């Protein structure tokens, strides 16, 4: 297998600035086995692709080496180009001389020498490559959406509309997520529940969507197109099928407790539904609060319930589902105030975070929309809003910007000014980020029409002094110290991934970054796919973002799932393990290594000389195998090999790198 073509890419200046591309392609011209070597400005561009295709056809090349950027970027592009020219795509290998040579080395001579050696080693690898053909594997056309917030619901609705069954798993008893807690939404100030409830209602009644609230995913095995997922449905102690939603039990229940839906701003009963428009509109008994669970007495709800659907002895159920694709829409939480020492560490009742202010401002909230101080219920005369509380802060380990706080803080100030015209709203900010459509106009309106005072500067400390909150900061534009006494302080705390996201990542084997947000396959080109094939991402699970972006991303993820389900079988990656049955002795040392249980013993007939001999050999389930290659190391005689990264290829690459 000798006729190899080598293409060295300039990548504009990215590569050619520190790697002498001409010298590289010149040197490769008479390297044994290389039939054609050339360099080109932008190989990934269409003319570049045409050049490759034409050279393959004209010279009947049997292998291609493209020295350009990272394989994660354009391996599939160049392999598709080769396939179009009639060459098996797995005869094409990429040498990464951009991210691993030109960009990371400054000395041109070293970088060029290294690039040439890397290309030569890839040529050796291509010499040992074989024709590989993808396998067809069956597909379960059912999607599992984790997280019932706006992004989870959008995905569920889009996929259900396309006619595929959806399972929506939500850890809270009702769907709606964080959006259900908002009062109005920027920049149009339309009420959050007005635009959300049609969606939740539709999800509630859509025939293709199976709702699993109060549940979480505990185990996921298998591979894309054939996941098997175990969902734990926590007990609600109320039989939701029989319950008619009259909510008598909630009324009569004597025990009151803090409602975590209200973020501590309001109360709820031991048996209750989070908010009036909740879907499913069914109550749930909180085991920790309910008197019966503590003392065994009370049972008022049982007496009151007309259809007798209270079931104290309800158990948690584990449901197993066969799934084709998974969409992670686990949403976000706000950084707890306790972590911000300088702003009172959550000790002061009147220092609240953005979500608590939403609940106070929300019509269906505990104060029916009237902005009051949580401590004494009075209408605050002056409110101080503090932006970037915990975000853009390196010491706290969160240098990133939470993106949505500038807008919702402006909204909070406007809502307050609309209610209390003569109230004082001061916002301490670093930079106002209002990049969306109509966002900047919204903030200008807050400043000009509603006279919200914007002070540029960071707040040093917030403390309580004889009943009033003192905010010490500095106005960097005027350079003076600022001391404001306020009735209420609202912190725009940082957006962090929802609790349990990291554990979910490890269950689904999807990587998360250092802050716990899920890793997308590629920041610009594959934002809705995770690194694991068949697992997609939507909404704040991947990074902080506002509602319009979340919905557009969720629609994107749904589109990905729908395209995946549009074919009735999947094409599997042929770079999987392969057994040489002439050598395999059937010792099955490889079997316990395989994470996907793809290796099974089998009795086969093998011709030896003139006799047919029955032998036990290991066989690979090509659909299950994901090509990690750990089994080939356990195989002593080298019978188990991995196509695409075979022992021969890696050894040749190694040898030529060490010359």
């Amino acid at each position, binding site marked *: 297998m000798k006729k190899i073509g080598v293409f060295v890419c300039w990548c504009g200046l990215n590569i050619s600035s520190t790697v002498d591309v001409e010298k590289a392609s010149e040197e490769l011209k*008479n390297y*044994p086995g290389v039939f054609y070597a050339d360099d080109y400005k932008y190989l990934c561009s269409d003319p570049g692709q045409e050049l490759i295709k034409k050279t393959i056809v004209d010279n009947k090349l049997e292998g291609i080496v493209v020295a350009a950027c990272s394989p994660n970027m354009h391996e599939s592009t160049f392999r598709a180009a080769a396939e179009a020219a009639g060459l098996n795509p797995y005869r094409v290998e990429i040498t990464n001389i951009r991210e691993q040579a030109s960009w990371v080395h400054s000395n041109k001579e070293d970088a060029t020498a290294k690039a040439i050696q890397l290309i030569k080693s890839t040529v050796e690898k291509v010499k040992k490559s074989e024709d590989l053909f993808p396998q067809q594997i069956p597909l379960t056309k059912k999607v599992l959406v984790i997280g019932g917030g706006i992004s989870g619901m959008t995905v569920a609705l889009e996929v259900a509309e396309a006619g595929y069954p959806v399972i929506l798993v939500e850890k809270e008893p009702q769907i709606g997520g964080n959006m259900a807690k908002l009062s109005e939404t920027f920049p149009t100030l339309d009420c959050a529940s007005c635009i959300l409830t049609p969606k939740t209602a539709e999800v509630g009644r859509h025939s293709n969507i199976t709702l699993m609230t109060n549940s979480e995913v505990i185990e996921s095995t298998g591979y894309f197109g054939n996941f098997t997922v175990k969902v734990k449905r926590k007990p609600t102690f109320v039989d939701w099928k029989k319950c008619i939603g009259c909510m008598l039990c909630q009324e009569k229940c004597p025990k009151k407790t803090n409602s975590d839906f209200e973020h501590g701003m309001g109360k709820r009963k031991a048996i209750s539904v989070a908010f009036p428009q909740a879907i499913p509109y069914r109550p749930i008994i909180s085991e920790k609060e309910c008197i019966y669970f503590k003392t065994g007495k009370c049972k008022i709800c049982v007496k009151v319930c007309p259809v007798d659907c209270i079931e104290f002895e309800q158990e948690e159920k584990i449901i197993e589902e066969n799934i084709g694709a998974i969409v992670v829409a686990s949403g976000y939480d706000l950084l707890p105030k306790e972590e911000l020492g300088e702003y009172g560490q959550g000790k002061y009742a009147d220092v609240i975070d953005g979500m608590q202010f939403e609940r106070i401002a929300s019509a269906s909230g505990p104060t029916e929309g009237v902005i009051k101080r949580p401590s004494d219920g009075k209408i605050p005369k002056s409110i101080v809003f503090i932006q970037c509380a915990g975000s853009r802060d390196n010491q706290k380990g969160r240098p990133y910007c939470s993106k949505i706080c500038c807008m919702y803080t402006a909204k909070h100030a406007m809502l307050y000014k609309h209610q209390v015209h003569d109230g004082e709203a001061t916002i301490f900010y670093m930079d106002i980020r209002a990049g969306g459509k109509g966002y900047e106009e919204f903030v200008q309106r807050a400043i000009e029409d509603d006279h919200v005072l914007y002070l540029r500067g960071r707040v040093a400390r917030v403390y309580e002094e004889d009943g009033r909150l003192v905010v010490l900061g500095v106005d960097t534009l005027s350079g003076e110290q600022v001391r404001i006494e306020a009735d209420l302080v609202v912190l725009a705390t940082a957006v962090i991934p929802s609790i349990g996201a990291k554990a979910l990542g490890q269950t689904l084997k999807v990587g998360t970054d250092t802050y716990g947000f899920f890793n997308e396959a590629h920041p610009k080109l594959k934002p809705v796919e995770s690194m694991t094939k068949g697992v997609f991402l939507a909404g704040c699970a991947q990074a902080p973002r506002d509602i319009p972006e979340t919905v557009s991303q969720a629609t994107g993820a749904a589109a990905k799932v729908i395209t995946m389900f549009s074919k009735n079988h999947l094409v599997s990656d042929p770079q999987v393990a392969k057994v040489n049955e002439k050598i395999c002795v059937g010792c099955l040392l490889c079997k316990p290594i395989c994470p996907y249980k793809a290796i099974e013993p089998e009795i086969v007939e093998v011709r030896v000389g003139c006799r047919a001999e029955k032998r036990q050999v290991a066989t690979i389930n090509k659909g299950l195998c994901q090509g990690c290659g750990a089994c080939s190391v356990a195989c002593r005689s080298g019978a188990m090999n991995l196509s695409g990264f075979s022992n021969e290829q890696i050894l040749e690459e190694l040898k030529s790198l060490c010359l």
Partner: protein
Amino acid sequence: MDKLLRSNVSRLLKKLSEHAEIYAPTMEDGVCVLSKLVNNYDDWTLDYVRTTNSVKDIFFPQNEEIMRYKNANNDLNIEPPKPFKERVAFGVRPCDAAAMLLLDNVFLEGEFYDSYYKERREKGALITIACEKPDQYCFCTSFHSSPGATEGSDIVLYPADDYFLVVAVTDKGKKLIKANAEIFENATEKSGIVENYKSMKTPIGNNCSPGELNEKLKNEFDNPYWKKIARRCLGCGNCTFVCPTCHCFAVCDVARGCDGKRTRTWDSCKFQDFFLMAGDHNPRPTQVERTRQRFMHKLNYFKEKYDKYQCVGCGRCVEKCPVGVHIADVITHMKEEL
């Protein structure tokens, strides 16, 4: 007749080392090995019956470079190896020296001679020490040789209490003695030291002498005895690699990018793939054919071609075979049976 005091041996070796590499038996972790002395010339020892590796190592080493080649962008040039240095092997046993004569038949007679072996033989000298105490594995007397035999050696030293009686066999040996005359003294007493070495018996005696075995073996091709002993054989190359007369080798190329070298290394007819051909055809697929091939070659084919048995009774395969498949056993059994 000359005499060499034991104390002068190191002096002799040091003097010889000026223009030749010196090989002598040394004890390495309890194993007596014929190895090259580099600077310390009294590292040799005498309390051994035979060295694990025979003197074949010096004339037909396990690993030998045939040639080197450079093939950068298609102009191929091939360089034969550089000429070898002189070598002197001290402390060789008479059986090993006799084995070298058998190798001479293979590599030097016939239509083509092996130039590497020829050059090494011409530049090599063997100083043999007669065996004072053959052990239970030796049967050199079965091949009309003896612990004091002189065939194949240049100089033979017969150990007496504190000196060696020196007998120069070949003119290379005489020249060597003349060149270092000051170290030798002429021996006055001519008692029968040499004769009693030559007439010394080995514990096994001659009951392993093949006599006319090769005629009888001609039609013993399908004798079930081969299957019986082959069943015990593990198929390792132990017996062939320690044997001083085995000469099979494999030629293999070692490539380093565009350049490289071609080497020749010992190979064993007992290995599974020794006779394997392209297309997976193997004329000797199981251990039975291979074991038969090994003993038929030593006791029949070699005798047909060179009229000598290809064994010198050094006893290495008898000692080293873990499961007792060795030539002494074969000869004794075949002599009884036929």
